[in-house]
């Protein structure tokens, strides 16, 4: 069964009689990262982006590959760097995100094909406050009209949705169209125009006039849902009986939106440091080859084994070793979608700008993050919520005046000394052995008197060291510790000793405190593909010296899936179980073929459907004709009255509305996007 016949089958099933009674509305959705480059999504993709950059291999945005698709279903050509949208000359084009003009050309005469054309290239970068989804992008518009670029020069800022150009046919082109491309900076690696939400949104496009989105019932059998439209693809999940899904027909397969609940964050590393199910590591943290040749002046004591499975160490101790890097290589889980990557870093001054080089399915990008930790720290100083020490050195100005007064003495160290006044409690977590120095400073001594106590548990009986002004705990083993700043004195004298003070806690070995965990960004990985996160020595701000080496630490990377929505493919066996009895309509596809008026004139396929100013009664409509539609044309549907459907029209400059008789509808879109607060990305 070819695509055309399938269209006819679906058309017979989805007649206007089954369309829902409620009025239909424009799609409700979370704001996608990129908008449309044109006013309404009614343009055909005439040549799609080739997802597979390898020469001789083509994969369109639905996943169809060279040699895999049936005739007419491969909507890309090898190497194509963007999507081509067929459109009449002079169609208004809009910025898909806020940005600045990187390059433009607009002087090539229209309809001139002398090997160059007019173009507009926009940058969307954090440096200008226009990054998209936290990442830098570049969008390109080609084949533009002569004098059809609106921004006057490079560097001009544009807002999302701003009119930026008009389409044409200049350059290497055989017909009027827009070539729209998206690339990821700084590598400028090309990515699909349907980045983020667009990927999910492609149902809005007419490929060959086929009906698009319907509900299907899976029936009583269990269905396998696969990564792609072939049994050669991995099974994502099995759909239980009687599932109801939104599906897009694609020859013998249906692309379905899986009704998964919001995903629970699942980390690649468990709290104990083990590798979570679904992940695998191809290696531990590994030094670059050059590292072995670098003398580490700080000695082996400062080296840290980086993972439970490896034996290498990295300390970045030698200044100027720019090539030195530590890489965390891993195999992505066999599950498409977005992933957050978090990283921690020893919280010292060097951590103000740590650069992570991440390689994902979109290429390699650098991300600079501040990992010095929270200077103020969390907590209130109470026993249940102590102040959190999360920076080295930690310096805090607090007071015991008004603080809780719960502990009056300490042991085993400091036993017998009256600490009857109010006190504050602090906590820190040592990841590596470190010498810790604690100092308190205040005015008014001896009337005012704050003592310090180092504890290995949140109890006064866990005191391992105390001092009036300063203490040093050498080679403190990894673990959780507390510092109590208590007002010294018996009875009322203890209360009177309460005062404001400054506490300083310094660590000889910089620590990756909990607050230094920073989300690097959101990434996508091809299922089962290799990926990596790399820390580069040259990126560490201020560098280090032998006495205070910066370093990566074990389990310093966390990868967390962020999937609340995804799609998969199910086979043709559900084709007879289309559910047409529900769901609102948000867009419609026009048909002018024989079944619309009862005859069999094949020329009807080329006829035009009138669009009226007002809705009609039955098949009668005396109002003015405001437009016409042809078979396969798609409109956003905004309302319904009886068997009449209100649609958006566009002349390229302004949208108006009109009404079409339901007899001419061959398919419709449901509201795919409502209630979605996050997007899966391939």
């Amino acid at each position, binding site marked *: 069964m070819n695509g055309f016949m399938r269209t006819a089958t679906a058309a017979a099933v989805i007649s206007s009689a089954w369309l829902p009674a409620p009025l239909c509305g424009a799609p409700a959705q979370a704001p996608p990262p990129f908008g449309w480059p044109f006013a309404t999504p009614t343009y055909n993709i005439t040549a799609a982006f080739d997802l597979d950059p390898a020469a001789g291999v083509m994969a369109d945005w639905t996943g169809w590959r060279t040699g895999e698709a049936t005739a007419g279903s491969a909507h890309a050509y090898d190497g194509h760097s963007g999507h081509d949208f067929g459109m009449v000359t002079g169609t208004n084009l809009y910025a898909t995100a806020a940005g600045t003009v990187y390059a433009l050309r607009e002087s090539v005469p229209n309809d001139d094909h002398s090997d160059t054309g007019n173009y507009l290239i926009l940058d969307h970068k954090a440096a200008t406050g226009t990054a998209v989804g936290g990442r830098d992008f570049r969008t390109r518009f080609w084949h533009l009209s002569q004098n059809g670029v609106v921004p006057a020069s490079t560097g001009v800022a544009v807002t999302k949705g701003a009119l930026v150009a008009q389409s044409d046919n200049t350059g*290497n082109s055989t017909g009027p169209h827009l070539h729209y491309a998206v690339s990821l900076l700084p590598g400028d690696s090309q990515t699909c125009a349907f980045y983020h939400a667009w990927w999910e949104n492609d149902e809005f496009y007419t490929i060959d006039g086929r009906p698009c989105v319907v509900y299907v019932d899976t029936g009583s059998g269990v269905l396998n849902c696969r990564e792609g439209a072939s049994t050669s693809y991995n099974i994502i999940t099995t759909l239980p009986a009687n599932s109801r899904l939104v599906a897009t027909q694609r020859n013998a397969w249906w692309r379905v939106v899986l009704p998964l609940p919001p995903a629970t964050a699942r980390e690649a590393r468990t709290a104990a440091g083990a590798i979570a199910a679904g992940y695998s590591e191809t290696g531990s943290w590994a030094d670059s080859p050059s590292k072995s040749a670098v003398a580490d002046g700080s000695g082996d004591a400062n080296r840290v084994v980086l993972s439970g499975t490896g034996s290498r160490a990295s300390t970045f101790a030698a200044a100027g070793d720019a090539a030195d890097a530590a890489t965390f290589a891993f195999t992505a889980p066999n599950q498409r979608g977005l992933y957050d990557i978090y990283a921690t870093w020893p919280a010292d001054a060097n951590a103000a700008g740590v650069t992570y080089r991440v390689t994902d399915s979109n290429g390699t990008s650098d991300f600079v993050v501040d990992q010095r930790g929270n200077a103020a720290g969390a907590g209130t100083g109470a026993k249940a919520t102590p102040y959190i020490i999360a920076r080295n050195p930690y310096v805090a100005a607090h007071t015991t005046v008004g603080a809780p007064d719960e502990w009056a003495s300490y042991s085993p160290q400091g036993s017998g000394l009256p600490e009857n006044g109010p006190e504050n409690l602090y906590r820190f977590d040592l990841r590596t052995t470190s010498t810790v120095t604690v100092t308190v400073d205040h005015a008014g001594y001896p009337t005012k008197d704050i003592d310090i106590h180092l504890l290995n548990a949140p109890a006064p009986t866990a005191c391992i060291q105390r001092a009036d002004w300063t203490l040093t705990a050498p080679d403190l083993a990894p673990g959780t510790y507390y510092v109590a700043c208590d007002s010294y004195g018996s009875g009322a004298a203890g209360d009177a000793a309460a005062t404001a003070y400054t506490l300083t806690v310094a660590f000889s070995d910089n620590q990756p405190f909990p607050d230094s965990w920073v989300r690097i960004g959101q990434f996508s990985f091809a299922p089962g593909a290799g990926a990596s996160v790399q820390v580069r020595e040259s990126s560490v701000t201020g560098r280090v010296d032998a006495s205070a080496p910066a370093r990566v630490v074990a389990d310093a990377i966390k990868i967390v899936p962020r999937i609340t929505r995804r799609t998969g493919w199910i086979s043709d066996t559900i084709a007879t179980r289309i559910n047409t009895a529900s769901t609102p309509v948000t867009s419609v596809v026009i048909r002018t073929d024989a079944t619309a008026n009862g005859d069999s004139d094949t020329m009807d396929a080329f006829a035009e459907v009138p669009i009226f100013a007002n809705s009609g009664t039955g098949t009668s409509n005396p109002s003015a004709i405001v437009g016409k539609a042809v078979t396969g044309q798609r409109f956003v549907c905004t309302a319904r009255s009886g068997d009449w459907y209100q649609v958006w029209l566009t002349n390229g400059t302004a949208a108006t509305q009109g009404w079409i008789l339901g007899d001419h509808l061959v398919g419709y879109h449901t509201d795919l996007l409502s209630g979605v607060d996050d997007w899966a990305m391939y």
Partner: protein
Amino acid sequence: MLALLPAGYSAASPPPVFVRDGRLVIVDAAAPRTVTPRDRATRDGEACPPVDAYWGALADGRLVVTFRPQTSPDSAADPEPHCSTHSPGSRAALVNPDGTLDAELGTGVLRAFPSPAGSTVALVSTDRNLSLWRDGSQTTITAPGRISNAGWSPDGRFLAVSAYPPDWSEGAVSSARTTAEFLRLQNADLHLFDTTRMAFVGQLTSDPGTEYGPFFSPDGRSIFYVWLHATEDRGGLMRLDLDRDGGTSATAPATPLTRAGNDAGETPLGRVGTYVWRRSGTQLAFEAGRPDGSGEIWAMSADGRGAVRIAAGRKPQATGDAGVVFLDEKGVPQTVVPEVRR
């Protein structure tokens, strides 16, 4: 059909020729006519495919034309417009003034440039290779890049060409994965080919932008061309003066003659190949594009000043020393003597 031919029209000059509905319209003052090229090798003079473009005439009056590309099965099945990865190749041929087909110049031809002396035809193929047709034989030229278009010196010795990088192709442009790669492929420079030595003898421009559409001044001492900046909205018609000893290199940086655009003080760029000389080299006429794909006939001084829009129309050609003949919006030849403002 014809408007009154202006004074100064020389009957001795090759008559202007246009293409309309696949046929040749020969604007001959004595006998204006429309001819349908046909193959006299066949018994009944079988009609050739519709003419796609007329490129000029040889000294003996034979007309250089290309026929419309044959539609491939693929393009028939996929009529949607898209970035072409394969420009349709044309058949180039010489046609006698009576319409009979005289000789084939080659297939897969994108553009043809007959020399002023009418003895040689430079051919640019769909894959942007350059060859010279002369006396029935064709010689492929090893070029410094992919040739886009060309212009002959008045004496027919030199051929100025615009060349894109050697790895340029239509597919490479539409598949450029980085902006840098895309912009690199937009870089066209001018080179000079000496037909007496059958070798390229100099690179005339090296700007990272696009220099294309070269044509010589009537005295052969200057090359005019279009320049477009790679990333900024700058460009226009340029003049490059050549040295007087063989004319193979520039004597000074190119002089900008116009600033491209439609605003005040700007002049629209002409389509490539439509610049024609008037008044012995003191004025130019050219065709500018309009948003709907139609054209406008413009005229200006050779120094770039006084640009004036003459009429809506396409394919301007000089009529002797004074006027311009062009196709109006209905495809009817019209003549006019432009008044250039100074």
